[in-house]
């Protein structure tokens, strides 16, 4: 029971309280870039969830069983990026094979998950927080869920903004920035939550 409570607390923390996009400000590039349509936002979110979970798994294993015993922790960043890049390549191949339309919709942002600092962020955070293996994987999953949630919320708002009557100067990117700011403010409300 205590374990479940811990997992729940972690989920709330990763999805809302310490949301990667709106509280830690990681992964802002796809947040603005792929949030024009709900469909592609959902696809991107799924890809990020997959990459984050897998990255958490592999980086934790590499850190614990390779880097620490050999005392070469300083290679952490480079080894993690190597892992993440390979995973993204794998995801890209899978998506291209199974969902060509999604592949086209995501466009350049799919390979850009490689440099999505949220993925590297969650990997390094797992190590810094000294999570156990299972918790590291769960943290990756929840972080991805948080990212997807925010991305879809943003996409929903922006789809409506397309039809809204706005001053010409505010159309497109400016209003997206304002909306992003408002969402960050709203998520600030979660920061008081503690378990």
């Amino acid at each position, binding site marked *: 029971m205590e374990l479940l409570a811990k997992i729940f607390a972690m989920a709330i923390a990763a999805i809302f309280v310490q949301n990667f996009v709106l509280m830690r400000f990681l992964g802002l590039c796809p947040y603005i870039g792929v949030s024009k349509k709900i469909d592609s936002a959902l696809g991107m979110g799924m890809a990020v969830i997959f990459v984050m979970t897998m990255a958490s798994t592999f980086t934790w294993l590499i850190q614990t069983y390779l880097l620490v015993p050999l005392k070469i922790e300083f290679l952490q960043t480079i080894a993690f990026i190597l892992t993440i890049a*390979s995973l993204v390549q794998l995801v890209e*191949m899978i998506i291209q094979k199974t969902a060509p339309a999604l592949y086209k919709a995501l466009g350049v942002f799919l390979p850009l998950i490689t440099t999505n600092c949220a993925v590297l962020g969650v990997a390094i955070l797992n190590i810094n927080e000294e999570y156990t293996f299972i918790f590291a994987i769960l943290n990756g999953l929840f972080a991805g869920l948080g990212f997807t949630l925010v991305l879809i919320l943003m996409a929903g708002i922006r789809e409506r903004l397309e039809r809204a009557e706005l001053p010409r100067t505010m159309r497109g990117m400016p209003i997206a920035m304002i909306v992003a700011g408002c969402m960050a403010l709203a998520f600030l409300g979660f920061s008081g939550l503690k378990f």
Partner: protein
Amino acid sequence: MSIILYSIATLGILGVIYGLGLAFASKKFHVDIDPKIEQINEILPGVNCGACGYPGCSAYAEAIVKHNAEINLCAPGGDDVIADIAKILGIEAISADKKIAVIHCQSGGLNNTFFRYEYHGICTCKAAVLVSSGPNLCNYGCVFQNDCIAACQFDAIHLDENGMRIIDKEKCTGCGACVIACPRNLIELVSIKKRVHILCTSHDKGVVSRKVCGNKTACIACTLCVKKCPVEAIEMQNNLAVIIYDKCINCGQCADVCPTSAIFDPLKEVRAKKKAEAKAKAETVKKQLEKQKTTETLEDTN
């Protein structure tokens, strides 16, 4: 020293493992792409207008190669694109009958429309027609919020000095975006070879349509054109004369008899000129003949 070795070994091994893994995955998830699809996709205009009936240029390219779709469906591309595609596929080019948009309404300007009320709502035709049958008196005519202009990707629809929508024949590619955009279904794609059009879509009775049309060019269902047409290319459909373009021979006789000028014939002046020329020519020939005759008679008398 050992740290350097460990570092090199660790990253090297990781790199090799990932490399092998990706190589395996790329074999497993390999997607075969016919190079022809890529080539055709490059030739197509890339505007994704959907005139071909496929969700985009790349989908059409794929359909041509994989499902033997017709190669003359791309309206914006025109004959050049068809010839290029035919070259890639190694087949004979079929020429497309180029179609352009025709707006079947001559009203819709600021100066030639009778208003039911002043419309100050959302600036789209789709919204305007919803408010008690639109702001203009004619229930069938243009409501001038310019959805067609917004829909046109090729900048082919313009407003003239009266605020009327004019279609630029050179720029129009016949993609049909405006046809879909117009909530009153005023726009139709017609072969560029057909020049005579009935520019009214009102199904009102003659008295009503004459009264409500701000341009006074409504079809009043008098059926004069139907009777006049030598090839029976005009039909009455529910109080509206409609040209059946397959039969029309561009003779323009219907435009001559139309009492309200609802039928537009751009060749009218050309025809009049030709007629005048022919008349003049006939007269000169006649004069010459007469002259010849007189000289002949003179010679005879001599």
